[in-house]
């Protein structure tokens, strides 16, 4: 199908991370509001300059995005709430870009943020969805670790992927994270450490799993003219796609849906996987990152183990810089912020503002997202290609 309108004229600005903490007694509006304050400070804007707000937060309930308008003392003419976890950042970008192009809003703040109270993760998991509460939780109450361990074992068996192969993802991301001040996990990690770690939900061991935490990630979306007038470095959107509940007939997930839009994504951007200077995948588990790399064409389906053995993924490895800030595996998973982390980092990289290691001459990045384990798999597959706009 022909797409009639691209995403020209839209700027991604002021990538911002509110540093993560392991747990917090503060509520979600604190993390969302302080992330917003950081974005405004970065951009040199006042809150009155913002007329649109897109928010993703699991812990905001019973409040909604409009509660935040009142809480923050803001008048807004465009609102969006995106309860789609690891796919939220790319979807927020897509929705906001159309609003900017149509003139429905002029400057939109897109924020993913969550708190993490003691015991909060158990409550979130136990009541995450109707299907998971009724059909998954009664079987060991392991939350996503159990579901994804089933996906991982099936995948490893089907394609001959070993733990040592997957460990390369965790180890390279830890190397990247050691340069990132807000990463919660910066202790050096070797492949031997990865292999010797205690089991959590076999085949998963400790370094396959993310640490739940609290924090926020966000960016601003505005017209490129506006970004230039403000003197702000910005990234452009070359292409963005989403697909939900793809391959529903597969009884165990081994492809997440990215393959269903991959050709359209690359055609719209006029580039291919080999043209990417860096890649940010959604790393709730290394095996899910590998699935994204395969399904987005960085290697053939089922060839991921060989790809991992041959392709250094650390920023300074000379291969394919991947999850360049350490990803969730090293920064922590701050709820919905996890669905923004890779996108915010990619905006930093292609505008030359990396907090850790800068990928040299980074001009183009692919960011993929994945989210929402309603029953036994992530349902949302999204991806965007962003490019350097102006500095």
């Amino acid at each position: 199908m022909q797409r009639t309108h691209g995403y020209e004229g839209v700027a991604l600005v002021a990538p911002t991370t509110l540093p993560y903490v392991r747990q917090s007694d503060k509520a979600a509006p604190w993390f969302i509001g302080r992330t917003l304050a950081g974005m405004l400070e970065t951009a040199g804007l006042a809150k009155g300059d913002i007329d649109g707000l897109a928010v993703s937060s699991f812990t905001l309930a019973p409040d909604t995005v409009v509660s935040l308008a009142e809480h923050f003392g803001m008048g807004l003419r465009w609102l969006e709430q995106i309860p789609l976890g690891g796919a939220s950042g790319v979807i927020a970008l897509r929705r906001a870009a159309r609003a900017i192009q149509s003139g429905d809003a002029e400057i939109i703040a897109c924020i993913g943020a969550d708190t993490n109270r003691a015991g909060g993760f158990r409550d979130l998991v136990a009541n995450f969805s109707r299907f998971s509460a009724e059909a998954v939780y009664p079987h060991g109450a392991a939350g996503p670790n159990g579901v994804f361990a089933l996906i991982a074992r099936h995948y490893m068996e089907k394609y001959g992927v070993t733990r040592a192969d997957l460990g390369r993802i965790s180890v390279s991301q830890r190397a990247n994270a050691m340069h990132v001040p807000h990463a919660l996990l910066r202790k050096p990690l070797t492949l031997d450490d990865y292999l010797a770690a205690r089991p959590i939900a076999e085949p998963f061991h400790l370094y396959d799993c993310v640490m739940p935490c609290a924090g926020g990630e966000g960016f601003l979306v505005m017209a490129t003219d506006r970004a230039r007038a403000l003197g702000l470095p910005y990234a452009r959107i070359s292409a963005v796609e989403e697909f939900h509940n793809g391959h529903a007939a597969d009884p165990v997930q081994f492809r997440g849906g990215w393959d269903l839009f991959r050709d359209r994504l690359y055609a719209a951007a006029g580039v291919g996987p080999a043209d990417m200077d860096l890649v940010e995948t959604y790393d709730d588990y290394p095996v899910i990152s590998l699935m994204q790399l395969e399904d987005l064409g960085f290697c053939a389906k089922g060839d991921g183990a060989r790809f991992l053995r041959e392709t250094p993924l650390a920023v300074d490895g000379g291969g394919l810089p991947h999850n360049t800030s350490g990803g969730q595996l090293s920064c922590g998973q701050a709820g919905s912020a996890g669905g923004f982390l890779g996108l915010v980092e990619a905006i930093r990289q292609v505008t030359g503002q990396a907090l850790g290691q800068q990928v040299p001459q980074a001009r183009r990045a692919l960011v993929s997202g994945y989210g929402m384990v309603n029953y036994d798999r992530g349902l949302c597959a999204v991806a965007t290609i962003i490019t350097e706009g102006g500095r």
Partner: protein
Amino acid sequence: MSALWLQVCDDCGAVQYPRREVCVACLGGHLVSQTVMAGGVVLSTALLHASLETETPLPYRIATVLLDCGPHMIVSAPDPAIGIGSRVTVRRDGIWQDGDRYDAVISSAEKGGASHG
């Protein structure tokens, strides 16, 4: 032969799991719980060493079973002999937390001598 008690669509006959309000195949609104054949094949397994509930006996083995009658289920699979490819029968094991718990047992035909190694 063992049976399970699951929803079946009154309009198109599709077996549903997890429980739905409308049919996953045809959106029909009349789902009737009835007995269906409980046999299936194991597609994956996992061994849990951590649980969000203190009363979960650890380690705790789970499996994904594709039922012959259509849907797939995540079930408990306490028997360590259950692996990928095992023929199993799924049984309802009672209610736990907010849902029904099911477990898989090696099908008696297989137990009777067929090898799965």
